[in-house]
């Protein structure tokens, strides 16, 4: 089959590789119909995540048709399913607590050992990511092997097009959990750093959960426009003094909750960030937590810090005293995707959540390397890329469905979404 493979920093290729096979009884094989490129893939592309190996198949946001099942799979051939990017057994201590991304069994013994050395405990596994998290082939390919297919994949009812459900695999639940981790209370002002796909879905979720106001921060006009169309106020951090602006916009209080949808590759030409960049490239440190530092300074006393943005190891100059003295609460983590797929699918079917507004491009799998380049270099224009193995060429989509949103006053009166307990 054809698959997008990683060969090094800024070097991804479409190669011919063997087809996946059923190995364990709970496995299924999917024929991929849609697969997206994620901000997390950029961290791999930029070479910031250790334990990648040349030849790894990437892709953790995918859906497709079941074409083969193991003896203990509950799926049936022909079903359309979306697959959570987190690989979770459904049986262990963590899965039973619905902390699926912490699954204790999905990371094979050898790679679990490595991550235990680095993190203190073995990490759960994910598709198409580093070997620390299992080294499983991903879904930017024609076919993929899905372990534990009896608990992970969610079957999609007929009539829902791929674009409406594909993001159940990662960024939609990630934005939702990010907002949930912000512990939003009625009347809250929530500030969201980063208006990539994760930030945009965090904004949408925060408003559904009853935030009175969301302030979205980025530097790309197109991404900020999408945030505005969702109902957020926006700040271009190149234009204004960000910390001062946030204090002024909240009458000296500061945002009640701050959400980091940037992660380890924060932009910004400040001294701390330049030093971090040099260190990250020399593996002396792995993070550039410039945005996270700002968030902790900006957050109100007694406020909440939610971190869906990905970090990989040790950070320097972390404002620990500020965190303590201000009495902040931090919540973070890889998303427990399996916990959210069903309730979020319901909200999609009820028309309460739109997932298509941010898709800027569809492209064939063969164009994937070019799309990675665009996704990396032209973040203003490329707001979300969906690859379709069957498609030839590339199609730009007129995005921005913001005009369908209700006026702000009305939305603020909406009841809070029902608690999502899977």
């Amino acid at each position: 089959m054809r698959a997008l493979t990683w060969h090094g920093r800024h070097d991804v290729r479409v190669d011919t590789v063997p087809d996946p096979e059923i190995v364990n009884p709970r496995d299924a094989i999917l024929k991929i119909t849609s697969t997206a490129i994620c901000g997390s893939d950029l961290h791999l592309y930029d070479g910031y995540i250790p334990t990648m190996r040349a030849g790894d198949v990437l892709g953790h946001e995918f859906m497709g048709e079941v074409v083969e099942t193991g003896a203990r799979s509950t799926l049936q051939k022909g079903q359309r399913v979306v697959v959570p990017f987190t690989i979770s057994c459904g049986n262990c201590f963590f899965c039973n607590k619905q902390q699926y991304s912490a699954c204790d069994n999905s990371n094979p013994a050898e790679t679990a050992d490595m991550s235990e050395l680095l993190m203190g405990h073995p990490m759960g596994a994910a598709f198409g990511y580093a070997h620390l998290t299992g080294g499983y082939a991903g879904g930017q390919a024609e076919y993929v092997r899905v372990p534990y297919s009896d608990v992970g994949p969610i079957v999609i009812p007929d009539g829902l097009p791929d674009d409406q459900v594909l993001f159940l695999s990662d960024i939609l639940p990630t934005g939702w959990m990010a907002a949930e981790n912000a512990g939003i209370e009625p009347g809250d002002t929530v500030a969201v750093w980063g208006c990539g796909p994760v930030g945009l879905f965090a904004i949408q979720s925060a408003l559904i959960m009853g935030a009175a106001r969301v302030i979205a921060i980025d530097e790309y006009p197109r991404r900020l426009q999408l945030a505005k169309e969702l109902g957020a106020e926006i700040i271009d951090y190149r234009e204004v003094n960000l910390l001062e602006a946030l204090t002024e916009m909240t009458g000296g209080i500061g945002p009640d909750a701050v959400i980091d949808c940037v992660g380890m590759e924060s932009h910004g030409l400040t001294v701390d960030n330049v030093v971090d960049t040099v260190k990250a490239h020399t593996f002396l440190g792995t993070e550039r937590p410039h945005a996270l530092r700002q968030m902790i300074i900006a957050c109100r006393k007694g406020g909440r810090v939610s971190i869906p943005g990905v970090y990989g190891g040790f950070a320097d100059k972390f404002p620990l005293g500020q965190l303590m003295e201000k009495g902040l609460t931090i919540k973070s983590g890889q998303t427990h995707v399996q916990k959210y797929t069903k309730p979020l699918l319901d909200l999609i079917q009820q028309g309460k959540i739109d997932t298509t507004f941010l898709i800027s491009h569809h492209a064939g799998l063969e164009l994937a390397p070019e799309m990675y380049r665009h996704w990396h270099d032209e973040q203003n224009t490329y707001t979300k890329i969906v690859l379709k193995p069957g498609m030839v060429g590339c199609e730009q989509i007129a995005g921005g469905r913001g005009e369908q949103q209700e006026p702000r006053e009305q939305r603020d009166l909406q009841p809070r979404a029902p608690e999502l307990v899977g």
Partner: protein
Amino acid sequence: MAEAQPNQPERIKERDSSIDRATAQKALLAGGIAAAAAGAAFLLARKSNATAPDGPVISDAPAWTLKKATKQADRPIAAKTLLIGRPRAELYAVWKDYRRFPDFMENVEGIEPADEGASRWTIKAPAGKTVTLVTRIREDIPDRKISWESLPESDIETSGQVEFEDAPGGRGTFVSLVMSYAPPAGRAGQLVAKLFAREPNIQARHDLRRFKQLMETGEVTTNASPSARPSESPAQPRV
């Protein structure tokens, strides 16, 4: 058991003199995380520099977590506890049935019954060799504990035990695997031991983890899947 250490190399069967691929790949991978693990190693190093207090031991932790080791030779080569979310009796029953060991012990090629209730093991050793181990059960407390030791005709001298204890809070069972092994005699034996000093330890930890996977999920986890590396098959685990 699976963490066999060749201490009598003259009895080890040569199968392949080239370093096997798996070992080479493990080395590569280890290099890859070395940089990122440097920070963690730093923390660990700091920890072990601290001095242990003199006097009687007051901690309620297992003996193998003591900083002040008794003689190195007395220390278990591997000791690890994992929570397994299954009842004690069920776990004991599977561990009692040695025919199931190859299901979760990667390096065990086969086990046959030997004289007087003993079992004869064929174990894969590093660099494509095999070792033979003959063990007898030393202690067997149903649903709680099994211990064993090697008999003189074995290639290696080893002993071990597995204990099953109810985890607090109804969470399942704590399974503790403790293995010891005597350093091999002879210069050649010591060389081999030095080369693979960590191997038995790692192997035991992996086997316990696979046992947990098998008991909780019904299968042993594998990342077998396609890659663009020609040496790999999509049906084989990737190191």
